[in-house]
């Protein structure tokens, strides 16, 4: 939005302050035109010289591997038997997509994604409201506290939650023994439901601060006068929330949800530490890891990786087309 204007007016070179496009076309002076286009060329060249290395490296570390994975996925190829490498076309994909394991893991991953994002949206919004309205005296304290889970290593969070619930070293069982269904022998990590509960709790704890900071930025953009005016008109807190605040920060909410959903869909660390995928808690990232790194089935693992990547693309596509999330726009691309 504003980026182009200061960039031009602040430029110390000799060109006048007119709109450059208009000037090039309308000026009759050939020399001025040539000089101008030289300057444009120089600026373009400098721009790509500065931005190029970062751009090339980003492509090298992602585009190259995904192309390589796509290629590898067309072979039956096990690292321990390199001589038996054989081209099988889409055979690996057929194997995966007809295997109930893929569909079960996809279901688990989607379940975790939907539940964690929904809880985080509510919790994150509450935290954002608290930080937004907080008195000056506690604002710093609140922000500092909330950044601790943001900055902490996911694996550390996983261990903290795991040890708290673990049947041997945990204390949750003795704390909540008064609840029906919980006693000292409750093994949280031996059943799908309870294991997923702890896994999601750790995931939610660690990533809610991120979503709440995005929502805080959205809240800050809602003009105070709107809410005040509604208050004067006699709107209740809930009405103001629903009719004024939330509609005005819809873009921020959408971006926060999409970002977190894509992140949650890649969940790996918490599951790996707590159950390693046992008892029906395996997620897609773990399936890919198990195939390629543990079993060295590069062909199958690559195919899972490619499918996972396609799922992420699909989620993005749905979000952008259906819900009209303008990532580039609201992300500062204006």
């Amino acid at each position, binding site marked *: 939005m504003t980026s182009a204007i200061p960039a031009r007016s602040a430029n110390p070179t000799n060109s006048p302050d007119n709109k450059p496009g208009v000037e090039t076309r309308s000026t009759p002076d050939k020399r001025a035109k040539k000089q101008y286009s030289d300057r444009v060329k120089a600026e373009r060249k400098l721009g790509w010289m500065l*931005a190029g290395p970062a751009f090339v*490296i980003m492509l090298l570390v992602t585009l190259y591997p995904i192309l390589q994975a796509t290629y590898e996925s067309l072979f039956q190829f096990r690292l321990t038997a390199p001589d038996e490498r054989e081209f099988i076309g889409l055979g690996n994909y057929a194997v995966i997509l007809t295997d109930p394991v893929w569909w079960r893991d996809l279901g688990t991953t989607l379940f975790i994604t939907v539940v964690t994002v929904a809880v985080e949206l509510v919790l994150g919004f509450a935290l954002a409201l608290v930080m937004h309205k907080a008195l000056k005296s506690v604002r710093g304290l609140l*922000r500092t506290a909330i950044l601790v889970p943001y900055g902490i290593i996911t694996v550390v969070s996983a261990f903290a939650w795991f040890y708290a619930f673990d049947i041997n070293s945990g204390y949750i069982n003795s704390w909540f023994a008064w609840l029906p269904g919980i006693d000292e022998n409750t093994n949280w990590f031996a059943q799908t439901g309870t294991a997923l509960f702890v896994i999601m709790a750790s995931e939610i704890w660690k990533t809610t601060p991120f979503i709440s900071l995005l929502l*805080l930025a959205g809240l800050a953009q809602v003009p105070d006068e709107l809410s005040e005016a509604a208050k004067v008109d006699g709107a209740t807190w809930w009405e103001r929330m629903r009719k004024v605040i939330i509609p005005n920060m819809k873009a921020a909410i959408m971006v926060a949800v999409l970002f977190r959903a894509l992140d949650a869909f890649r969940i790996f660390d918490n599951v790996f530490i707590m159950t390693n995928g046992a008892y029906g808690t395996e997620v897609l990232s773990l399936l*890919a890891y198990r195939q390629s790194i543990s079993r060295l089935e590069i062909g199958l693992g690559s195919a899972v990786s490619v499918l996972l990547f396609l799922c992420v693309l699909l989620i993005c596509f749905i979000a952008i087309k259906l819900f009209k999330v303008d990532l580039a726009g609201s992300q500062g691309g204006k």
Partner: protein
Amino acid sequence: MTDNSTKNKVLWTVVTVLVLIYALFPVVSILATSFKSPSDLTSGKFLPSSGTATTSNYEQILVGNAQDLFLSALRNSIGISLIATFIAVVLATLCAYAIARLDFPGKKLILTTALAVSIFPVISIVTPLFNLWRTIGLYDTWLGLIIPYLSLTLPISIWTLAAFFRQIPWELEQAAQVDGATTWQAFRKAIVPLAAPGVFTTAIIAFFIAWNDFVYGISLTSTEAARPVPAALAFFTGASQFEAPTGAISAAAIIVTIPIVLLVLLFQRQIVSGLTSGAVKG
């Protein structure tokens, strides 16, 4: 009026305490576990039983039989994360400067690419890299982790810095030149002080992300030569095979959380503004 403000104060105290419990409880929980003695681990209590609190878990990983494992992992984590952060921030600074300041085609392409890279599933990158690194000898080396770490640290650095640089009043540079400063002086005196906080904040955020990595760490390393802390924690086995490594892992977890807490305590304002300006705001 006074009644109202007292009520307000009580409300805010309650809210603040709730947020603090939410944010710190798991950390305090693992901190308590890290001081438990092996026999006390199964007590079913939150705190170590009175009189049995011990620092033996810390001794085990810092000077005891697990020190080789932990200290080398710590060295790897610090080294690899710092180098990956440094490279990302230098490249992103140049890139973001060009995006904020210069007019050239492809800006949108670069920002979109950064966005696409940041949502890329890490596990999809790991499989081909695993294979390639083994072939060209980068498996289980620092460089073998630094390169893929750039896929984590570069995109967010570019977004955050581009947002920061857009807010800088670049006219100041020209004003300084009018006042007789040379180009270099103008840049150093007028622009660097404005840009430095943004660069620094970006470095902290990028460091957090590199420090947090787990997937690359467990997939692309196999020994103490390059294995970072999160991966080492996952493969940690106790002092003997009959002893659960709970205490040692908890102590190690606390040690790697200290730098995070320090950075957060010192720079919370900058981190919040970095995270929120990189996103949502124009």
